[in-house]
Structures are given as C-alpha cells and as structure tokens.
C-alpha cells in the first residue's frame, strides 16, 4: 500500500553548521515500527539526492516514537555563509514529509495506516 509520510508522521528540522537535522515523529505509537522499518537511511539519502551534497546519518528514538536524520552538506555552507532562503534548514522537515512509502498490505492493515489518496 502507498502511504504518505505526512499522513503518519510530523517533523521539525533545524541546523548545525552545514548540516540540517530532521526529526520525524510518528503520529501514533503503533506507526513508529512502520517508520523504523521503511524510513531507512538509504531511502532518505535517495529522496534528497541532488539536493544535499553530503551523506545522511540516522538515529532511532523509540522512546519518542521518532527518528532523527542528519543531512550533511544541506545548507550551502550553513549559517551566515549560506545564500539559500532556507539557510537554517527550517523546512527540510516538510521536504522529507513529501515522501511516500510502499508498505506491504498486511503490515499496513495491522498498523491501521491511512492509504495515500
């Protein structure tokens, strides 16, 4: 089943130098395992290919039903150097939420995931 990330998670992003971080939080605790299985480092790196210049790190926070991604080389140098509108990486959060996940039907049914329209 096709699932829109924005229907199952919320997010906030920020900066540290030239790295943006995106914290992705499951809207329901039961949806965290789905995020943890399908929102992989490779999937996120592919999503931002050509948009960021460096690699991606991924951390799990099951206590907050959240994943944290570090997007390196995301801010044209970051801080005061950057020429970008989003020099502080504030809206990488919703850029990540544009992603759609392919979740096996049975897994999606058990977790009660909303299907993409």
């Amino acid at each position, binding site marked *: 089943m096709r699932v829109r990330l924005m229907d199952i998670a919320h997010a906030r992003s920020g900066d540290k130098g030239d790295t943006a971080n995106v914290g992705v939080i499951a809207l329901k605790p039961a949806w965290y395992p789905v995020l943890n299985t399908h929102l992989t480092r490779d999937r996120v790196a592919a999503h931002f290919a050509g948009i960021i210049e460096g690699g991606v790190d991924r*951390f799990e926070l099951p206590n907050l039903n959240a994943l944290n991604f570090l997007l390196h080389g995301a801010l044209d140098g970051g*801080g005061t150097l950057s020429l970008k*509108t989003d020099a502080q990486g504030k809206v990488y959060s919703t850029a990540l939420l544009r992603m759609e996940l392919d979740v096996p039907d049975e897994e999606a049914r058990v977790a009660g995931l909303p299907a993409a329209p």
Partner: protein
Amino acid sequence: MSKTVRVAGGQGFWGDWPDAPRRQVDGGPVDYLMLDYLAEVTMSILQKQKERDPAMGYARDFVGAMEGVLPAVAERGVKVIANAGGVNPEACAAAVQSMAKAAGRPDALRIGIVTGDNLLPRIDELLAAGHELRNMDTGEPLSVVRDRVIAANAYIGSTPIVEALAKGANVVITGRSTDTALTMAPLRHEFGWGATDWNKLAAGIIAGHIIECGAQCSGGNCLHDWRNIPNLADVGYPIVEGSADGTFVVTKHPGTGGRVSVPTVSEQLVYEMGDPHAYITPDVVADFTSIRLEDAGPDRVRVFGITGAPATDKLKVSIAYKSGYKAVGSLVYAWPDALEKAELADRVLRERLDRMGLKFEKVLSEFVGASATHGRLAGDAGRSAPEVQYRVGVRDADRKKVERFTREIVPLVLNGPPSVTGFAGGRPKVEEIVAYWPALVDKTVVQTQVEIR
C-alpha cells in the same frame, strides 16, 4: 508536599517577543525567569559593537526586559538568569543597574556577573601552547584563519551560575553560557545537585533544551495539528516545574494561548538534534533516548526517566571569523508563465556575468513560489504559479566583484523578460560574512569568575 521550582522561559533568541518576559512573571507564580539571547553568530555581532563603543557588546533588549520584570524581581523575589552579557557582561550589568536606579529602585538588584568565557585576548597564547582549536567540522587548525578571527568564546556550563545564586544574586548575567545551563543552574542550586549527579544534571539540561527556544515547545512553529492550536496571538511561553529527583513538568500559564502536549514537546526535543545518545554539554552528556514523556493534564507534560553520562574534559569554543562577502537580490515575475520568465532572467543575468569575466565562489539562483525551499521535490506546481520571485545571490572573497554583481539585477526590469516588479529596494547591499568556527579546548584552560555587584 515536596518542593517544586518553577523556571520560566522568556526569550528564545535575541529578537524574540518583547512582551514575553513580563508576561511570564505576571501570568502566575514563577521562581526563575530564564532568558536566552545568544545564537552562534550573535557573539561576533556583539564583538563588532564593542569595538565601535566599549560600553556596548551585550544584548540591549535585556535592559528593556529587566525594566518590565523589575517589580516582580523587587517585590516577589523572582530571579532572572540571562546570557545577555554577550562579550561585555560588566557593561550589561551597569546598564541594568542604571535602569533600576532611574526606575526608583536603586537597591532592588544584586547582580551576579559571570565572566571568563571570552578567549579572544588569549588566542595567540593558546595556539602557542599547542591548542590548535581545529574546526570540528573540517579538521583544519585555526591558524588557517587566525588573522581573520573577530570573536572566540568558550561555552560555559552551570557551575558559575550556581555560584552566583549561592552568593545571593537575584539577577545573573553571563556571556557565552550554554542555553541549557540557564535552566539547569537554578534547579541544581535549589535542589543541591552535585557536580556528578549525572542523571539529574542531564534532566536539567533537557528541561533547558525544551524551553530554550521559547514558545517553540508550547505551540509555536508546531507542525502537529497546527490549524487547531488555540490563540497563538496570546501564546503562553513555557515553564518547567522541576522536582528534586530530576523529573519535571512542562507547562504554561493558565489562560494563555498555544499548547503544551506530548507532540509539541516532542517536536522541540528533536529540534537541532545530533546524535541523541550523546548531547554533549560542559556539565554532562545527556541521553535523549532515555527521555519519557507523559500527558499530565491540559497543557501539562511530565518528563522523567532521563539519564546522563559523565561530562567530557573539553569545552566547545565558538569562534567567529571574517570570510568574504555576499549579496542577494530579487525580482518578482507575474502570470502568465511567471516561472519561465524568471528562468529566462536568470540565464540573461548569468550570461552577462560571464561576459564580464566575473567568476564567483558561488552563484545561487532560487525561484520562490516554485522550488526555493524543496527543490525538485516540489514537482511542477510552480509552472502555473501566479507569481514567482527570482532570488539570486553570490559569494566571494573579493568585495569589488560582489559589488559589481549588485548592479546587474535592477536593469533586468527594463532590459530583461516582461511582467516584472518588486524591485523597490533597488540594488542589494553587500554584506561581509562572519562565519562560524566550532572548536574544542581543554576545560582546564578556561577559568570562570563570578562577581556580585
């Protein structure tokens, strides 16, 4: 009933809501008001101001904030902790004392001044002693940019703030304290936490992380259910109700707008997060994977379970150095085919720069309304946008080249593609870039001082 200490967050950065500090002390009982003024680049701005005028170099907004909360400090015993001192905490304290005197309360304040974070006068001494101050991101030694350094401050922790409170200060002004120490220090002071009570110190740091960005944990900038967050016009700034065991509740004053909930606090917890297992501060290494959140009633979230590990033997140093020039300009193109016109303008501009032989370290073009923030992920929706802002910037070490670039934008209004407006600002300004150089230094190098005035 066990003791609760209320620490209110009243300012998330220099430029935050001017009314927030006063609202925090007038809206209900609080014991401490915490005001965070310093971002990574703020110290360099303050350093420049101090060079122009030796009586400057601190966050001047703080004097106005203190005026607003002076009755609460004088009559109800509310204490204030702020890193408003910037590169000149003494001058900041003097300005606050003058304000109190002018307000007819010359004896109301006992100001604790924390200094020792400023390493600028000691850089050559440190380099000579073998402290390379390598850039934490690139690994380069500071010697590469030494002649362009304009500010250098160590991030200092809670200990000198606790010392100032123990000496009876009711206002504590620091320079480059960590944002989180401003909240942890009063909890540590009130509950007598030791310098190796790692779990409790970590809890205090995480309480600080939650409220250091002001309303960003109480409904501001909150994506979750944003349409239904009540009354943002009257948003309540956050309050930590701390307990001796390190657990705490995040809340806000009754009757204020916004929301404190597990989702609003969770969003703030992941903000600017690195490795969640190791949130390194001068006081403790906090583990964000240990945090437990629990709904504790309307606009109340209980936080518990936090663990921490021993602090490292280093302090982070925030160094600012001059790094060339930049300029960014923009024009607005209107329907029909707004994006196509803006893209043509970009090609024309770049061709003109090429013909002049102007090469820059970086030229960045963005199309606001189409793809500026999400790039190709935004898809084709921008093709039918009713208007698109063409935004173009350059960066280079040579000021003259950047200056020349700024003259090439406005002419496009008459000699480029049609349906263009939004040029009222004229030529963009050339800005000198002050860049950020994060480094580490041995803790033993930095000695803080506390003076009560």
